[in-house]
């Protein structure tokens, strides 16, 4: 959509990290090919998802206007960017922020992109990512280039891949941690990004790191792999390791992660994860998405059998120097302050004192605090991002992190700078108090933008925030520290299971009409890395949820025994009693003419489920072979473009490369231990597919394989215009044959 899209590649030439520029060029080509109808829509959906380019509500081409469903006349007509996903429909761009770590320039980049490609808002997610909404697919390559130039990638932010590696935002400064997990989480993020062993999952895979077991900040219990820093004494020396959990996850049916090993050494951290990834790719469910997360595999196998398989896989892994390259730096890694530590200010306005109480946290380093910028619903404007960048530069060495509570923290703030820093944040509208309290409601996008949303989680969150903010400092202290988390549906992106008061969207019929509801989930635990999951108690119409919060918190404040936690209070009350307290709120409005119940918070349309679409969270189940063969075709396309522009040598080399990629795709069906060495690829291909005749065409026999062998023999010879042209044709035939071969061997013979 942007006129400048064609110019960003030139503008940023040479400024992108190695590999990322090529990666984005590839995606741009795929966008062009899909637009021309030369790239399969299912494959395109998965390839864009793996670049964080996600669908949004109404992208199926229809919208409910409160009375009827209407078709949306997108200008590109029937062109799609995935099954039932219209090309011109605005989408969401997810941006990975490993461990939530950012610098000031990256905040400024985010600001620019939010303005130019989105609606002026950047949104922090519950997994430390950023998201931009209402982005056009054709703008995404430019957006990615600009991010890459700032050292940020969107690669594998969605789809069946390793998602953002999250980490405690207080790592390195928290008084209760065993050690700083930052360098380990970064090493894992870097190692797994684009790793060949992570390209064939049936669903996503989410890692998380925590520095301790008692706090919530890492939420390791609800992750596919959760790593908690621990130390032990070995021969009088303190050694680092990770208590490692696997198979956690929220979703419709939440699973607590199971202990895999109480102490995994840093040397084993990456190879163990790689082995787990291999087992997941090989054994995980691929067809039934609802059982494709690793938690189901572990449940089906049992943790002991799973461990056996992982250990077996670990033994077979070829050594990779990257497993330990990061370790020397990891042991000495330490952020530093910009300014000398100071003393806490004794004076200040009531607002300032409140803000200090809720939005600052002492670091283990004397004289410093972490300051939390509480973002309403995780939203921040472009100008606020720039102001925050200025503030970070002025008071810190740009030690900024996003949090799973959808906030941003500034670390290493000298306590004596707090009054001035508060002033700076206040001027930017970023000094709201109440971080981490009941006011600081976390929510997924819900019906605002998510295709799966059932109820308006953001609408409800905004309403609760407004109501609670008005009275937050009059609330009993026990109530102030509760957590509210809201999801628009049962998929738990708002992490409602680990809240004191959790809500997820459901719908119910009342008086013959659909009415937006929220299921009330109580008894979850935020601490201990999300240590306990809450249970649904009763579904209540959306418009009555604020009253649910009032009743439950009032009852807790009045009936709490000693220092009883909310979780224990809920347990003591029991489901029957809780239902009694709330059940009148589940009834239809007394006044049958009161139509307010039949619409949701922030959306006056009469409520309907017809705007829901098919979720893309799971991505398309596309095999790694499909992907590699598509990549081979894309390379062949690039070879043709090069030949047409007279770049003969490049055309020949790229055509040969495309044949190698297709051959490797087939070899990888039988073994993962294959490098990019042409001799190894051709050798393995010959052994496994030519000598066995698996590649043989029913009519042409091994003819097309001969093209590859001939291309390898001639690969050192300079290409001519003719030879490059012939090679392009042969490569096309070879890739077609590879597709046929894959179809033959992947389709079960009929009985």
């Amino acid at each position, binding site marked *: *959509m*942007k*006129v*400048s899209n064609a*110019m*960003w590649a*030139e*503008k940023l*030439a*040479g*400024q992108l990290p190695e590999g990322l520029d090529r990666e984005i060029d590839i995606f741009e080509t795929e966008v062009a090919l899909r637009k021309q109808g030369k790239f399969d829509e299912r494959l395109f959906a998965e390839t864009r998802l793996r670049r964080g380019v996600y669908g949004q*509500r*109404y992208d199926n081409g229809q*919208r409910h*206007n*409160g009375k009827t469903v209407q078709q*949306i*006349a*997108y*200008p590109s007509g029937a062109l799609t960017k995935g099954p039932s996903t219209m090309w*011109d*429909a*605005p989408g969401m761009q997810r941006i990975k922020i490993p461990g939530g770590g950012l610098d000031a320039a990256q905040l*400024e980049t985010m*600001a*620019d992109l939010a*303005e*130019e490609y989105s*609606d*002026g*808002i950047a949104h922090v997610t519950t997994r430390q990512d950023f998201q931009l*909404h*209402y982005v*056009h697919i054709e703008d995404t390559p430019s957006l990615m280039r600009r991010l890459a130039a700032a050292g940020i990638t969107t690669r594998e932010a969605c789809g069946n891949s390793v998602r953002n590696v999250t980490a405690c935002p207080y790592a390195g400064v928290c008084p209760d941690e065993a050690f700083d997990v930052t360098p380990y989480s970064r090493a894992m993020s870097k190692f797994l990004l684009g790793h060949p062993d992570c390209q064939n999952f049936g669903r996503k895979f989410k890692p998380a790191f925590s520095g301790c077991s008692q706090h919530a900040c890492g939420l390791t219990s609800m992750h596919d792999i959760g790593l908690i820093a621990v130390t032990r004494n070995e021969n009088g020396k303190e050694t680092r390791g990770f208590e490692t959990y696997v198979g956690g996850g929220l979703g419709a049916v939440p699973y607590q992660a199971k202990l895999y090993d109480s102490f995994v050494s840093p040397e084993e951290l990456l190879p163990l994860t790689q082995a787990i990834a291999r087992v997941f790719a090989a054994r995980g469910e691929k067809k039934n998405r609802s059982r494709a997360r690793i938690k189901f595999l572990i449940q089906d196998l049992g943790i002991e059998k799973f461990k056996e398989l992982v250990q077996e896989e670990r033994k077979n892994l070829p050594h990779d120097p990257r497993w330990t390259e990061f370790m020397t730096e990891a042991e000495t890694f330490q952020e530093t302050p910009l300014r000398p530590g100071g003393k806490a200010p004794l004076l200040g306005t009531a607002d300032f004192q409140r803000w200090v109480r809720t939005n600052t946290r002492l670091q283990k380093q004397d004289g410093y605090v972490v300051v939390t910028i509480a973002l*309403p*619903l995780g*939203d*921040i*404007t472009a*100008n*606020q991002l*720039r102001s925050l960048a200025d503030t970070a530069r002025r008071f810190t060495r740009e030690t900024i992190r996003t949090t799973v509570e959808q906030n941003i923290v500034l670390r290493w703030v000298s306590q004596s700078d707090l009054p001035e820093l508060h002033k700076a944040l206040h001027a930017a*509208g970023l000094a709201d108090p109440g971080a981490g309290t009941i006011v600081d409601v976390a929510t997924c996008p819900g019906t*605002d*933008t998510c295709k799966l949303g059932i109820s308006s989680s*953001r*609408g409800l969150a*905004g309403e609760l*925030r*407004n109501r609670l903010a008005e009275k937050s400092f009059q609330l009993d202290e026990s109530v102030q520290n509760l957590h509210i988390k809201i999801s628009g549906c049962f998929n738990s992106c708002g992490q409602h299971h680990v809240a004191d008061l959790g809500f997820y969207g459901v719908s119910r019929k009342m008086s013959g009409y659909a009415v937006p509801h929220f299921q009330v989930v109580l008894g979850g635990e935020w601490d201990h890395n999300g240590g306990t999951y809450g249970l649904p108690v009763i579904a209540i119409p959306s418009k009555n949820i604020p009253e649910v919060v009032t009743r439950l918190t009032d009852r807790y404040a009045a009936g709490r025994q000693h220092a009883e936690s909310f979780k224990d209070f809920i347990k003591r009350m029991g489901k029957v009693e809780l239902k009694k307290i709330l059940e009148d709120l589940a009834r239809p409005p007394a006044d049958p003419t009161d139509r307010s119940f039949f619409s949701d918070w*922030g*959306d*006056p*349309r009469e409520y309907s489920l017809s705007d829901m679409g098919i979720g893309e969270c799971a991505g398309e189940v596309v095999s790694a072979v499909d992907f590699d063969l598509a990549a081979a075709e894309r390379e062949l396309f690039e070879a043709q473009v090069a030949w047409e522009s007279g770049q003969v040598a490049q055309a020949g080399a790229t055509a040969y490369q495309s044949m190698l990629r297709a051959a490797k795709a087939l070899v990888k069906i039988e073994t993962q231990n294959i490098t990019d060495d042409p001799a190894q690829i051709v050798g393995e291909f010959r052994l496994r597919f030519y000598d066995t005749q698996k590649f043989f065409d029913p009519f042409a026999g091994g003819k097309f394989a001969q093209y590859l062998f001939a291309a390898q023999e001639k690969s050192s010879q300079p290409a001519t215009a003719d030879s490059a042209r012939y090679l392009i044709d042969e490569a096309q035939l070879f890739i077609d044959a590879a597709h046929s071969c894959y179809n033959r061997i992947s389709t079960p013979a009929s009985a």
Partner: protein
Amino acid sequence: MEKSNVPSPTQHSLQLQHVNVKLLLQHPSEVALDPLIPIFLDWIQDPFPGELLLDIADYRHVPAGPGVVLIGHEGDYGVDNTDNRLGVRYNRKAAFEGSNQDRLKQAARAALTACRRLETDSRLGGKLRFHGQEVEIFINDRLLAPNSDATRVAADPDFRAFADKLFRGSEYSMTQEADRRRLFGVTLKSSRPFSVEQVLEAIG
């Protein structure tokens, strides 16, 4: 200094695409934003000719933010509170054919037409009114129009020609956005007030 392979714009090369026009409002504290949601829902049903309107993004909870945005395919409309300056904003997203004057005119017309529609919507109780003297114009593309002196010099003739027409020859001031990280743009302030109708008529 960032290396750039793309030359700075000149008067001849500058393309004023993705024009944003924001019309500042009178008595902003009296304007209630809640009715904008049902109003914009109606606009989705009854869009401006040639435009596809898709969805509403509600950012009333964000201080000095975009307010309520009506997301469109060709452009977004909104009542925007950036810098705590409430105004009706149009953000042209799709490329627009023609000269720079044509593009400025298209965006201004869109903003003015939207403003007129809001001014006359009874749900806003007559509280939303164009200030009459202040208009912000931005170019929402940092590559086409970086916020630099070179862009200002290159854009000056186009902006002045347009402002002369907009304010019907009255005196006006033109101030460039000072923070170079922000979008290139200017605030135009006329010496006397005009109604939306007058300005619409003036730009033709």
